[in-house]
């Protein structure tokens, strides 16, 4: 659905995981951008109705890009830069206490 504007850009590649599966991204990508570039259609489901949601505003306002990052739930994917080895999980429904 989304394509990079500069497919040949020279940023180094980083590898992170989404729900345990390795995914490649560019250094400097936000988690939300990297997930969209990887072709994901949604990154979370809502806590009450369970509707799927994808990153929307990409600037920290809409909270639709919530994901679990390295074990911490409900982080805004558009405000976190992806790192080598980062473990990202879809935020399915409510965050759990202690995560």
């Amino acid at each position, binding site marked *: 659905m989304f394509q990079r504007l500069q497919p040949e850009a020279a940023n180094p590649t980083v590898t992170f995981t989404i729900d345990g599966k390795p995914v490649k991204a560019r250094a400097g990508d936000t988690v939300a951008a990297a997930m969209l570039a990887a072709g994901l259609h949604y990154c979370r489901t809502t*806590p*009450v109705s369970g509707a799927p949601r994808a990153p929307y505003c990409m600037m920290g306002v809409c909270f639709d890009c919530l994901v679990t990052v390295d074990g*911490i739930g*409900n982080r805004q994917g558009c405000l976190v830069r992806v790192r080598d080895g980062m473990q990202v999980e879809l935020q399915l*429904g*409510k*965050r*759990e*206490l*202690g995560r």
Partner: protein
Amino acid sequence: MIVSVRLFFGALADAGSFVLDRTYSSEAVGTRIRIERQSMTRAKPTEFDVAVIGGGLMGSAIAWGLAKVGQRVTVLDEGDVAFRASRGNFALIWVQSKGLGLAPYSAWTMRSSNAWAGFADALKEQIGIDVCFQRPGGFNLSLSERELENRRSLLQRIQDQPGMQRFDFEMLDPARVKQAIPQIGPEVVGASYSRYDGHCNSPQLFRALNAAMQQLGVAYLPEHRVDRIEYVAREFRLFSARGEIRASKIVLAAGIDNVRLGPMVGLDVPVRPQRGQLIVTERTAPFLNYVVQTVRQTDEGGLMFGDSQEETGADPSVTSPVISVLANRAVRMFPQVANLNIVRTWAALRVMTKDGFPIYDQSERCPGAFCASCHSGVTLAAAHALFLAPCIAAGDLPAAQFKPFSSRRFDVPALAA
């Protein structure tokens, strides 16, 4: 383009007197719309069996109860500027620590708590809104031995009062608390527990009562702040900027505004605002299967941390020193909540009487005028709808039941002096 709209208000139309005329005119381009609104035209004042002043939880519960027993009712409410404890409360239906100094208040609270399941069912059956009532039992967690001993002493003194309808409660050591709530932290030294405590979704309760009373024909009139009440020929005339309403009975359920309204009909309602501040977190997977007095998980998952008691007048501001204390205590009780994101903080004003107990009274000077004031509009909603309203409909608050709650109790020391 001129469009004229005539709106007839459901129940009011029956009385045949209120017509709202609105003329909308818009200029051709459509970028600027001018709305002219004529005030309500009134052939003669609308008459009701009962006019309830105040459309919060107190007024709505009473109005719904009155309509259920066949009264023709109107509710005169303030607008969005109103102080609304009904929108700011903690949603507990709380029994265990109520009534030290007035045993009948404990009994009244228990009676409401016992009636709550049927009350919630009736609302759901009538209009399909689930107010999420649960009575799983309630804990009050102590963070020091002194707090725990004070708690035990308070609950025991309540039970030991003369005239008390006693009920069971337990004092639990941390191991017993942990069995019920494994997430408590090491600073919790014990707790009191009562199986009679519960909670609900109070915004849904507010919505349900408003919809249910209107479905039963109650004329709900927002933006009708009552400026003046006259008692003429055994009838009440209520004046607001929107006109005049007449009723054979009135109920003052206007929260802290009962102070202003009471003297107009010979009632003394000494209440004051008492601020409470609250925190709510993001929605969290359900883990708390009980109600904790200052930490509650809502049916939709958010955690609420409460609740301060501040004598700061009619100022519903949120202040960070108080919010910090609430957050700190919540984290000491449940260390894992420290990582949760807070999504809102807010404050609301309790309607507090001098002794903390409700005031239900009827006027001697103006028979048919009643008042109802309390700080537990959620806990007592069932009692107000099912037990208080039928007495108001019958025109009398029986002394056996309501004398302890008369505001005349505040006069006794003055008479003795």
